């Protein structure tokens, strides 16, 4: 199965959708949909995410790859499929910000990795806290682009803690990349440098929760 990862990644990076689909179908001839997702799609997206963080792949490639893969995975693992990962209960949101590309990318990569995640769109602090508690979330992914929004994560964490919510807050976005101490300062539990980081972090948190 490993032999498929590099050509699949190359097809994604060069935005060759036909080639990516063809490779995916060949993997499916030998493996189950869930195995194809976990052993080919996810590693390829992880490598692309790491390459973006290191500067050798561009955000446009990350975004388009995520979209391709989300569609591929949806075709074999629809949202209702029991093999979809519905745990931990997770949601993603843009906090007090109007820049949603980062959230879209993480959402696509999470879904392309087999996870089902609530998409909260854009919310302010109070609305987000109420919704997270009502939905009994275990993991909350917060995406921001501008510094004032990043600083508002502190209010979210404080309110969730005060209300006794057992939810882990994972943050991502430019302010956290440009200041690697900021996520701790605002009280988050983890910070993702890239969309594929989000998958790894949620899997780690899932293990810790069990």
């Amino acid at each position, binding site marked *: 199965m490993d032999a498929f990862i590099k050509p699949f990644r190359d097809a994604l990076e060069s935005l060759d959708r036909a080639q990516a689909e063809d490779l995916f179908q060949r993997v499916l001839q030998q493996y189950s949909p869930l195995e194809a997702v976990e052993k080919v799609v996810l590693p390829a997206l992880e490598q692309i995410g790491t390459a973006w963080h290191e*500067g050798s792949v561009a955000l*446009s490639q990350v975004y388009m790859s995520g979209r391709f893969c989300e569609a591929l995975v949806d075709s074999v693992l629809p949202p209702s499929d029991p093999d979809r990962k519905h745990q931990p209960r997770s949601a993603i949101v843009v906090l007090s910000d*109007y820049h949603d590309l980062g959230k879209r990318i993480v959402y696509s990569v999470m879904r392309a990795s087999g996870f089902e995640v609530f998409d909260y769109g854009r919310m302010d602090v109070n609305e987000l806290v109420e919704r997270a508690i009502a939905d009994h979330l275990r993991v909350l992914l917060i995406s921001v682009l501008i510094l*004032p929004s990043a600083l508002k994560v502190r209010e979210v964490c404080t309110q969730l803690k005060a209300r006794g919510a057992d939810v882990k807050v994972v943050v991502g976005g430019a302010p956290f990349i440009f200041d690697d101490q900021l996520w701790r300062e605002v009280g988050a539990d983890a910070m993702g440098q890239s969309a594929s980081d989000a998958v790894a972090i949620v899997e780690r948190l899932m293990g810790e929760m069990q």
Partner: protein
Amino acid sequence: MNAPAMNSMQRTLTALGQKEPDQVPLFLLTTLHGAKELNLSIEDYFSSAENVVEGQMRLLKKYRSDCLYAFFHASIETEAWGGSTIYLPDGPPLCGAPVIGKSQDIDTLQVPNIESSAPLAKVLATIRGLKQRVGDTVPIVGVAISPFSLPVMQMGFHAYLELIHEQPVRFEKLMQANEAFTVAWANAQLEAGATAICYFDPVASTTIVPRALYQGTGMRVAQRTIAKIKGPTAMHLASGRGLGIVNDIISTGTAVIGVSAQEDLAEWKQATTGRINLLGNLNGVEMRRWTPEEAQKQVKLAIAKAARGGGFILGDNHGEIPWQVSEEVLLAIGDAVQRWGRYPLSWITEEACN
């Protein structure tokens, strides 16, 4: 012996001529801090040219920057296209709903007239007011968002990326409209008294698109656009990486490039010496929690890496200092330039560059 004192214009022009001026020019690109100086909300501050003129003049004096910055906020350009601005109490004004709701809207897009746009008229009045105050002693920096990056605000980032990849004909049509707008807008600012135009092009960055895509799109757009702007330009990638497209950037004809805090100024200097001037690259996000001592350290490091021989302007890496950065830190940056930025910079050793 130190060089004789120059005014900000002389200092900047000397540095841009790849020569050493009296001291390293400092372009402290403060916009929102003007509202603090006038004790106004950000929205009220940007409601009139008079406020911004007064704010910029106070900031110039207080922080000893070498330029005036006539930038209001990026979304003021989309206001001219029929869009709106969302004001925050503690951050940069943001762009409201996209003016291009669906890609078909591009087919009937009308290029706005600069003269009849009230928001743009405010910026032009600001430039004229600043010019009246300082004449030719201080550079006045105007701003134009590049035609290649403007669609992020016109139609939303994801929709724009999909357009680039999936609808090349409509993409070219949008570029034609935006190029006409950007050229007219930049030239109107120069006519009003701006010394140079900051050509913001974050999408050009290798952080956002791969080099091959840039070469076939944004680079050609920049070459065409910058050639028609009747004054010097400084390309700014707004924190994005650019070292991987350094020769492409130089080919656009821009005089200055803004360097990301994620890249090494020394590498940029080595890759570009004599071919383009560098602006940067203090980390504006980290600046929020700097102490005065850290500010001094960072200023020294940037100067050590890139200032020798001229061709360097010290500034932040994004093109705008965040609202949350304290007065104390901004003053410390100015102090550090006075202390460590005086040519001939004989204090610089190999160790100082690390």
